[in-house]
């Protein structure tokens, strides 16, 4: 009888401790999963956050916001943990000061942007779709350009990030991706280099 009580007792204590530790772990992780935490580093606050301010995901008609982790950290637990482990690389570069000035950040912008684009392409823009679902788009409520582009994009198997780059932050030098949408270089300037 006593043995059984101990067993039940251990089980109950185990359950309670489990809930506390599990909840505590998640709570601690969520502390690192909000805008205020992200912009506690000046690299984020002065570059990407400053660019995000006033753009559609920050400021809009209805006041619905998508903050840093809404787009850059997956919602689903297993993917979230994976992303949080990857973030240790970001801590390393924070310590190394890899992008601690605007100039350093600008020099790395294309590379950093490509990392994000690659991830979004691989996940079929999963984080976008937490809010924007192709199947729930009412094409008739869209403008004539969006209506056509979205349907053609869907048919061609495209994902959000294929077209919607530079929505929340400034674009890097895109001359490699689209050489037709950049400023002409004057031949005299070229030879002067």
């Amino acid at each position, binding site marked *: 009888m006593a043995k059984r009580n101990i067993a039940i007792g251990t089980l109950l204590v185990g359950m309670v401790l489990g809930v506390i530790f599990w909840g505590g772990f998640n709570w601690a992780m969520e502390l690192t999963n909000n805008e205020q935490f992200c912009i506690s580093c000046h690299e984020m606050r002065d570059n990407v956050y400053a660019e995000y301010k006033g753009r559609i995901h920050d400021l809009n008609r209805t006041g619905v916001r998508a903050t840093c982790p809404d787009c850059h950290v997956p919602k689903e637990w297993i993917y979230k943990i994976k992303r949080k482990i990857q973030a240790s690389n970001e801590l390393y570069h924070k310590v190394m000061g890899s992008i601690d000035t605007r100039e350093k950040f600008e020099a790395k912008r294309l590379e950093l942007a490509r990392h994000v684009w690659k991830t979004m392409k691989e996940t079929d823009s999963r984080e976008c779709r937490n809010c924007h679902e192709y199947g729930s788009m009412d094409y008739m409520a869209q403008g004539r350009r969006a209506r056509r582009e979205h349907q053609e994009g869907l048919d061609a198997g495209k994902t959000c990030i294929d077209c919607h780059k530079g929505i929340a932050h*400034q674009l890097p030098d895109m001359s490699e991706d*689209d*050489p*037709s*949408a*950049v400023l*002409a*270089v004057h031949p005299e300037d070229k030879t002067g280099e």
Partner: protein
Amino acid sequence: MKNQTAKKLLFAAFGLCALLLGQSVLAVEIQSLRGENAIDETTEVPEVKRYNKDGQPLPRNYVLQPPLIPHKIDGYEVTVKHNKCLSCHSWKNYRRHHATKISQTHFQSRDGVVLANVSARRYFCLQCHVPQTNALPLVDNTFEPVESVSSW
């Protein structure tokens, strides 16, 4: 010394002209676009204008008018690094996006050199091309284009 007298005379002549001109101007009712509000009074806040929804290309009002933008351009950035307008309107992209292509005149530098891309003097689209709002004209005008060179 002689020069200064001449200068004074010239100023006097200008002054007289200005006075005469001023009188004739005063005879015409002048009203600024601001209305009849005194300069130290706050004017009534005008109604907020909204950009028109996406539509078909708008007709030109006169020959060589820069075409108007028949769609919203919220958040479209034109920077030294990238031109959002050209991601649809460039020669490479216009067909795919069913857009109007940029004129070839935009590829010339100010010295007449034809460049491989849009010239800096024509790169900032919004200097000439503008979207439209629901605003009515502030001043009436009776301008009519020459029929023989109007395509609409």
